[in-house]
């Protein structure tokens, strides 16, 4: 199992029956592959529909039906299309229970930076700022480091996407909760020691007595 799979599998366990969920592009998209069989969750695609389904077979592609990345997808039974004003009313009005986003940096205040590297990469924020502010729960799903360099920081160095909106961070090393006291490691991947996780993290981690093992 690779890093992305470990993370996506673990994040999927956070889903509750009936949840309305928005998954960011990249790693977060994989979460849809691991939804527990006994629950129904509804994926929203911010370009305008609910009940996002898997990719179509080549002979079933409908060019009018794409996800927020512009890729052909399907709509599951019971779905509905709407315009962008409704789509973002869903997002900003607090109707999304959970959003899962990738990130470049997250810090101990729950700040997140994932939309721009000045002078280098300027993709734009798309719907990320809206999702971060509007979703009831914000999960960051990402590799713990970038080529060995910590991505979980005391303070973000890149321009923020949102201030204090991140609730939890899931990486291949463990699960971290953003609390008022700081970042709390609540689960650890048994392949790593606490010391290794802390060394890969710029911010100080709070280690609770009941630190659990991350199911991988």
């Amino acid at each position, binding site marked *: 199992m690779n890093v992305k799979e470990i993370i996506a599998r673990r994040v999927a366990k956070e889903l509750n029956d009936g949840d309305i969920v928005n998954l960011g592009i990249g790693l977060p998209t994989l979460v849809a592959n691991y939804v527990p069989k006994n629950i129904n969750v509804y994926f929203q*695609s*911010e*370009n*305008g*529909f609910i009940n996002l389904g898997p990719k179509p077979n080549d002979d079933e592609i*409908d*060019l*009018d*039906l*794409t996800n*927020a*990345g*512009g890729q052909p997808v399907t*709509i599951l039974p019971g779905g509905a*299309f*709407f*315009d*962008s*004003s409704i*789509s*973002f009313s869903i*997002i*900003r009005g607090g109707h999304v229970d959970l959003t899962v986003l990738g990130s470049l940096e997250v810090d101990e205040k729950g*700040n997140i930076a994932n939309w*721009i590297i000045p*002078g280098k*990469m*300027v*993709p*734009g*924020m*798309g*719907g*990320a*700022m*809206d999702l971060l*502010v*509007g979703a009831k729960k914000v999960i960051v799903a990402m590799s713990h480091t970038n080529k060995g360099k910590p991505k979980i920081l005391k303070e973000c160095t890149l*321009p*923020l*996407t*949102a*201030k*204090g909106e991140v609730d939890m961070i899931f990486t291949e090393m463990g699960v971290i909760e953003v609390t008022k006291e700081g970042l709390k490691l609540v689960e650890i991947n048994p392949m790593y020691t606490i010391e290794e996780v802390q060394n890969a993290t710029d911010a100080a981690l709070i280690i609770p007595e009941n630190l659990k093992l991350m199911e991988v």
Partner: protein
Amino acid sequence: MNKFIDVELFKSHCRDGMSIMVGGFMAVGTAEILIDALVETNVKDLTIICNDAGFEDKGVGKLICNNQVKVLISSHIGLNPIAGKMMSEGKMEVTLTPQGTLIEQIRAGGAGLGGVLTRTGLGTMVEENKQKVIVDEKEYLLEKPLKADMAIIRGSRVDKYGNVFYNATTQNFNPMMAMAANKVYAWTEELVEEIHPNHVMTPHIFVNYIVRESW
């Protein structure tokens, strides 16, 4: 009121310096034929309002790559590398706006509202130089309404009155842009006699012209 025009007449309406709203999301729901026509006119110094910068060969990306865009107001330009290059070289001014804010700004323009009060963008670069308003002790950014000289929309079906129906995810920004622009040009693959009044997504009163390749 005859709303039908052909692409040549559409081209004659295009002018240097115009502001144009273009419906579509990653070019899905974009009236490509009207973008091509705009490219052919070679009009310059356009202000383009669109969810994204399209691709180099798709959507508003074609206008950007043809150096016709002076200002781009958009939520995302990542899939069109030329757009990022032109931005960093100072050849195109880009205002990056959160997608939800962008659609609300367009809606506010069409609906006669004074602006949008949103928490999106607070504490980020987006809030720079913007007015803030406190409502019940909570802070909001004031984002101003957007309007345009022209909107280019794509209907999956358009009827002879100008009513529009959008299929699947082609709807996106189209209906709100149709309400926020001075002149609205609808292109469609399928012209029908009449769309049932329960299924109209953009009422005919917002559509000034129905454009087809030829008549």
